[in-house]
Structure formats: C-alpha cells, structure tokens
C-alpha cells in the first residue's frame, strides 16, 4: 500500500473495530424500527446508542435530535432547504464547499438572498465585516467550521455569539472537524450541525447526520417509510423520524458506533495533537523548497491537519499525479469543490495540491512526502 494523505476527502485507514463492527452488523443486524423481533430491536438499540454518543460529542442535549443521513451533503441540503423561505437573507462565507454553496444557490432561485463573507490573503474569515452583511430579513449564518482547502478553522464561539446577538440561526458544516475540534452546540449557540461519518470520525462512508437543537424545525427533504403511522399520508413530524425516511444505513451506523467508541477511548484531543504534529513536521520539512507556495494560516493549532500548496507554476494536477505515480503518495489536486475559496486565493487556474493527515499517518510517511516534494521541485 502507498502513502495515503487525502484524509480530508476520507480517512481511508479505519480502526479495525470499525471494520469488524460493519461485518458483524452485516451478519446479524435487522432493520431498525421495522418489527419488534430481536434482530430489529438490536438494530434500533445500536442506532439509538449511536445517537446518544453523537449527542454527547456535540453537546446537543437530546439524542432524539440526531438524524442520520448519507453524508454531510445530504445533511446540509436538508438543513439549508428545510429552514428558509423565499424572501429570507442568509449569510455564508467564501470558505464553503459546494455542499453548502449549491443548496444556497438553489435557495437564490427560489427567492432567497445570499451574501458571502470574504477571507483575507491567508484564507481567514473577515469576521470584522460580518455586521456589514446584516439586513432586516437576515435569518441565518451558514458556515463551515474549517475550510476543506486550507484547513483554517472558524471561531464557532465568536460566530455563535454573533448569531445570538442578532437573532440568527447558526448552521455549521462540521465535515472537516467532527471528531477533530471541539464542537459544543449549547455553549457555541449552534442550532444545526451537519457532519459526515467517514472523515475525522473514522466511520464508514455512507454515514453522517444532522443535529438539530430542540425547538428548531427543519422541513424534511424526503418522505417515505418510517416504521410508524403507516396510514398517515404525511411523513411523521417527530424527530429524528421526521428527517429519516426509508431504511437507515444500519450497517454503516454500526461502524460509526464503533468509531465513536474508538475516538472516546483514544481521545479526540490526543488524535488531533498527533495529526497537528505530523502537519508541523511536514511544514518544517518543506519550508525551504524553492518556489513553494503555501496557503492558509498555520499560526494556530486550532485547525485541521491540512496543507495546501503549489510548486512554482506547475499545474497542481501534474504534481499530484507525479506524487501518486512515482512515489505512491495520495493527495488531492484541483479545486476541491471549493470554488469561492480558490477564487479568493487566486488559484482557479493552477488549483492546489492538498495534503491532509490522519491518526494513521506516520513520521516516516511525512518524511517520504517531504523528500518527494523536494525532488519534484528540483
């Protein structure tokens, strides 16, 4: 196996307990909420316990407010399309991934207004400008916790206070930070957290969710089988069923359950420290490469372990391909589904080569990546 450094796309290497849990579930798990036999009840119990673990992780305060989705994209579509009405104004940022931007553009087509807060030259959000974006009809701030491109993290405590002061809903995209950086929905005044299971949580792909603060109503994206109230024409309104139509990915959630156990046992802080240590070693190794262009703010450890760079004027795709083909190192080139961020950084044509590290990377792998980049820059 080569060296995997595309963990911002998905943490490919998973704890063994996650793989074992999925296999075990595929052998024994029934369909949650469909019948009252033991195989179904066991599925429901495990899924409920996973809601409890997620509610605790994000300090949501009620496990029944955690609805499972396929990924962050589905969660974000649910939140963004389910919270607003024509005439509403929403503030977002240029740091967003297309999973936020495209649902927002759909809202624009339906008569909503959207504004994007810019970043500075290091990709840091211009929070000093936030107030200038407020309008009478502003309803919410929809914002990523950390950029999938630069790894820069936003200060959720500050943004949550801003939302509270101005009576705005606060919707957070935690795709890059769930399991990585602390998220406290109550302390940070967050109304909705959207997360994926297959990145920093080390769970399987096809898992994710939406955490909704009690008292907030999100219109469902889908309707269908719910296991309850079969003869009603409408999908049930009670959470989490309201946002879960059809059979859940129980096998995936079983893996996510194991992953959350792994995170708790290992400690998210311990994992983050290791990832940031690897990132610092990498930065230290490459800093003197001639023509190196680094993007992002590395002055703090409160960020994702992501390093986006370019070598001179080389096309990022060429560099990433060389790294893959010649050295067996997996990175992500191009635009990373973050068009406004690339526009902001002036890298639309060149793209960026993104390295992203995980708990399973080693110092030896970092050193190999540094050596490869040095050779490519010669």
């Amino acid at each position, binding site marked *: 196996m080569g060296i995997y450094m595309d963990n911002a796309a998905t943490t490919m290497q998973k704890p063994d307990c996650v793989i074992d849990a999925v296999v075990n579930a595929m052998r024994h798990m029934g369909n949650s909420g*469909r019948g*009252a036999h033991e195989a179904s009840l066991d599925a429901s119990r495990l899924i409920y316990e996973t809601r409890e673990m997620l509610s605790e992780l994000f300090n949501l305060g009620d496990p029944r407010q955690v609805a499972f989705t396929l990924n962050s994209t589905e969660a974000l579509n649910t939140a963004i399309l389910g919270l607003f009405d024509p005439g509403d104004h929403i503030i977002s940022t240029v740091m967003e991934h297309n999973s936020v931007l495209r649902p927002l553009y759909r809202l624009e087509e339906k008569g909503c207004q959207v504004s994007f807060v810019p970043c500075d030259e290091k990709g840091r959000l211009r929070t000093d400008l936030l107030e200038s974006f407020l309008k009478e009809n502003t309803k919410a701030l929809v914002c990523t916790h950390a950029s999938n491109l630069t790894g820069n993290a936003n200060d959720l405590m500050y943004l949550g206070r801003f939302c509270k002061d101005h009576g705005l809903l606060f919707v957070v995209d935690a795709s890059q930070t769930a399991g990585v950086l602390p998220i406290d929905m109550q302390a940070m005044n967050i109304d909705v957290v959207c997360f994926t299971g297959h990145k920093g949580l080390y769970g399987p792909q096809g898992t994710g969710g939406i955490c909704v603060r009690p008292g907030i109503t999100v219109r469902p994206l889908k309707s269908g089988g719910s296991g309850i109230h079969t003869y009603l024409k409408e999908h049930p309104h009670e959470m989490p069923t309201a946002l879960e139509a059809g059979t859940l990915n129980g096998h995936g959630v079983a893996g996510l359950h194991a992953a959350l156990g792994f995170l708790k046992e290992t400690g998210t802080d311990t994992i983050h420290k290791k990832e940031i240590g690897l990132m610092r070693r990498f930065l230290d190794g490459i800093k003197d490469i001639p023509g190196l262009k680094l993007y992002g703010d590395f002055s703090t450890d409160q960020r994702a372990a992501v390093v986006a760079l370019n070598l001179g004027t080389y096309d990022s795709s060429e560099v990433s391909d060389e790294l893959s083909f010649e050295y067996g190192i997996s990175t992500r080139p191009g635009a990373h589904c973050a068009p406004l961020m690339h526009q902001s950084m002036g890298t639309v044509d060149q793209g960026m080569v993104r390295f992203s590290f995980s708990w399973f990377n080693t110092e030896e792998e970092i050193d190999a990546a540094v050596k490869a980049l040095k050779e490519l820059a010669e």
Partner: protein
Amino acid sequence: MRQKEWKLIITFHTTSDAIAFEKACKETGRSGRMIPVPRELSAGCGLAWCTVPADRADMETFLKECSIECEDMAELLY
C-alpha cells in the same frame, strides 16, 4: 396461541422514543418488553412497551422523569 392476559401497553411517537424508554426501564430494573403495536391501538406499525397493568402509576411518573411523551397508554388483553 398463548392465553391472553391483561397488559398495560404504551405506544410512542417514534422508534427512538420507544428505544430510549426501553433502555431507561432496563437500566432501572423495571419489567416489561417491546412488542409490535397491537392493532387495537394503532392500525400502523411501530413499537410498544408491554408491562403489567399494576405498573400504570409508575410508568406515568417514569415517562415524565425520562422526558418521553407517550402516544397512548391502554390496558388490553394481549
């Protein structure tokens, strides 16, 4: 088929509520088990908690303690 007996049946708004209540009952040593919702209570599907009628007062109090709102509570031959 087994002989039917009077039971106290509690139904819930969601599967999560039902499972949360089952967990709380087990953790506190309360008797009972999950059953499919009897058709006398709902023509749909779903889960119900089944226990003895003598538990009614305790169940009502315990549901409040757990912040779980039941949909229905009825005594049936089951």
